[in-house]
């Protein structure tokens, strides 16, 4: 069963959402769903004590991702 919600976004947030939707070929619903899945998967790893890193393309920089 699916449930409906109203999402209040600022102009800037909506603009980013629309740009991402266009770039990824997703509807707003599908994009928010993907964002939620990614957030959950990262959060679960951190909860297990794992670390999530983002590495620059030239591998010169590696940043640990922190999630509030």
């Amino acid at each position, binding site marked *: 069963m699916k449930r409906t919600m109203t999402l209040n976004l600022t102009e800037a947030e909506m603009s980013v959402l629309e740009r991402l939707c266009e770039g990824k*070929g997703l509807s707003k619903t599908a994009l928010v769903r*993907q964002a939620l*899945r990614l957030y959950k998967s990262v959060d679960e790893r951190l909860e297990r004590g794992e670390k999530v890193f983002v590495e620059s393309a030239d591998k010169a920089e590696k940043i640990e991702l922190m999630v509030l």
Partner: protein
Amino acid sequence: MKQAIGTIPLFGLGSGKFHDAVLFRGIDLATLQSIEASWTPMFDAAAAENRPEDAHWEWAAKALQALQNPLNYELFGIEADGETQGMMLVVKGGAKCFSRHPEHPRMPLVYVDFLATAPWNRRGLIETPTYKGVGRVLFMSAVSLSIEEEFAGRVALHSLPGAEAFYRGRLSMTDMGADKDYQNLRYFELSTTQAKQLISAGP
């Protein structure tokens, strides 16, 4: 929870005819028991040199993983003759679900984490396998899920060495080479264009 999606034809290599099988989404205890009771003894009985690379996969643990995280995981299974003929675990969100294909880098996709057919459907274990096409039907379920999720049919996976020819040759996926960050297994992707071609080609 297990839900029947539909009836699909599987080609019986012994009978030379198509047989009805049921495609399921999800899993239940009966399926896990069927795998444990029927698959495991055949894998265990295989000579070491013939033992499939996936014989050690623990489907009960994978089912638990999927049930605990329905947001990111989906399980599919095929049943015929009262037996589980194949199982697949896919991921539909998270770090694995970004395309590496030059056709559409970083676009979302469905990632096949595990796909296995029953031991009696494998040529390496049985001289005349019971059914042909179980792996293909399961893979096409991943393509369907990808379309349902608005991912345009894109699917990715890391292949065990013994299955590479199947993904490269039979499913026409793009072989993107060995992935040093994933046990050196080769990474394959089905692009949007390849998905359309695969669907047009039919079963």
